[in-house]
């Protein structure tokens, strides 16, 4: 099991469920080091004072916030502690909402919640909350503090465990009305066009099967690294040209639909 990043209790009403938080994603990226080209020695990052032009030890560093006016305000650890939310060990459930009502755009980082320890009271409270969420198909919205920052989070039942996802705040999600969406009467598709497009989409329909999509980039990068290790040469692929927008959309749709149907039959 991944390492616990946070432990505390999930509380709704007067019921407290002792839980631990573990990440629901793992980092599989290949990581590189910066090297000095000449001697292949890993680069060291040093912090230097821009005024005195000398290295500054970590303990002598603090932070500043730049106001809109350009003025800088020093913010010390004590300052951060002063604003740090006090309730640091609870996920406070405020409401239960329909999962479908939340567009995934609000979802940020996914975690799992597991019962803290195998204490009977804790595991039963966990099962109870899980059971009632599975039954009602609702998700719990709440707040909790992790790494000195307060997060909005959604807790829901997923695959027989409680899943927690931190959420983006509404002002961190941009409005769709600022996006050029070609809406309006002149671009409204004719019924036959829309039907043909839906038919085409259905002809290319498939079940969502995450297991069949692999990270090709990671695989190729791993291959490049393996080749290098053996001292082999790696060649770059060619660039491709960009196609023009299709002048006759209906003709393209009909042709594509024909092709897709032929393929489905074969």
């Amino acid at each position, binding site marked *: *099991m991944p390492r616990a990043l946070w432990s505390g*209790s999930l509380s*709704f009403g*007067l*019921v407290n469920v002792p839980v631990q938080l573990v990440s629901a*994603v*793992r980092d*599989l990226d*290949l990581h590189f*080091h*910066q*090297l*000095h*080209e000449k*001697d292949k020695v890993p680069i*060291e990052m040093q*912090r*230097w*004072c*821009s005024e005195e032009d000398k290295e500054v030890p970590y303990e*002598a560093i603090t*932070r*500043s916030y730049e*106001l809109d006016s350009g003025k800088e305000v020093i913010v010390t650890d004590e300052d951060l502690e*002063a*604003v740090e939310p006090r309730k640091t060990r609870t996920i406070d459930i405020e409401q239960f*909402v329909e999962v479908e009502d939340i*567009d*995934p*755009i609000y*979802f940020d980082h996914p975690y799992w919640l597991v019962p803290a320890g*195998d204490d009977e009271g804790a595991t039963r*409270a966990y099962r*109870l909350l899980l059971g009632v969420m599975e039954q009602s198909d609702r998700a719990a919205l709440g707040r909790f503090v992790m790494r000195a920052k*307060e997060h909005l989070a959604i807790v829901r039942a997923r695959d027989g465990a409680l899943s927690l996802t931190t959420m983006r705040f509404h002002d961190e999600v*941009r409005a*769709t009305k*600022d996006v*050029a969406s070609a809406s309006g009467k002149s671009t*409204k*598709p004719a019924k036959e066009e829309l039907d043909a*497009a*839906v038919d*085409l*989409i259905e002809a290319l*329909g498939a079940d969502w099967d995450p297991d069949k*999509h*692999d*990270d*090709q*980039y990671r695989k*190729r990068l791993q291959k*490049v690294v393996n080749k*290098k*290790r053996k001292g082999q040469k790696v*060649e770059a692929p060619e660039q*491709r040209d960009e196609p023009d*927008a299709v002048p006759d959309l209906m003709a393209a749709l009909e042709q*594509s639909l024909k*092709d897709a149907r032929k393929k489905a039959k074969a």
Partner: protein
Amino acid sequence: MALRSIWNGTIAFAGVFVPIKVHSATEDKTVHFHEVHQDDGARIEHKRICPKEDKEVPYKEVVKGYEVSEGKYAVLEKEELDAAAGAQSRLIEIEEFVCADDIDPVFFDKTYYLGSQDTGKDAYRLLHDALDKAGRAGIGRWVFHNREYLVALRAIDDVLALNTMRFHDELVSVKDLELSTPSRKPSSRELEMAGQLVESLQADFKPEQYEDTYRERLLEYIDAKAKGKVSSLPKRDEATDPGDLMAALEASISAGS
């Protein structure tokens, strides 16, 4: 306000091409700081130092190395890294269309809005309306910043949106967890009571109801400090252990009604 586009290209599926531009759909509003030197308040600069020569290394002399064994690195040239990125293209190729509701949100990473281009407005609208009507999301690949992403194309409100996706092996499965189970399952009475409690806390999801109060407090505090007046903040209580589950449920419900 016009959104800045970060990529321009074309959505392609089965011979249909829709020119689009890509915009970030989200912006991180976390309060960020600069590192400064305590003694003089001057900004900190990060310098790249070669420890062997003990001198600063200009960026153009820095190469990427992969550690193949302890202290041994394979150097990767830019062209070699490009080879891994995949065929560079201005195309987002959609391979298939799945039921949008079948994709669990844990797969979604970052969201982008797609804007229409001056050419191909009809195609943009048609694709949007057809996805919306079919309730499907297009699954495809997108090469962005030298890296290939799995993406889902779907309709949000009046626009097309693109989500970069996490790969299946990047997600921790429930099988990887240690879920201890109680000797006795919750009783139907407990489930019923908990159900009532959930019902009493039921609400519609209204994102604008939830403000980032931490960010607000922090910015207020900084503002006060800039003006030379810092106030103290109230403390809140901690929660206690689960204790008697049934009693807690009953107390919660009667408190709510």
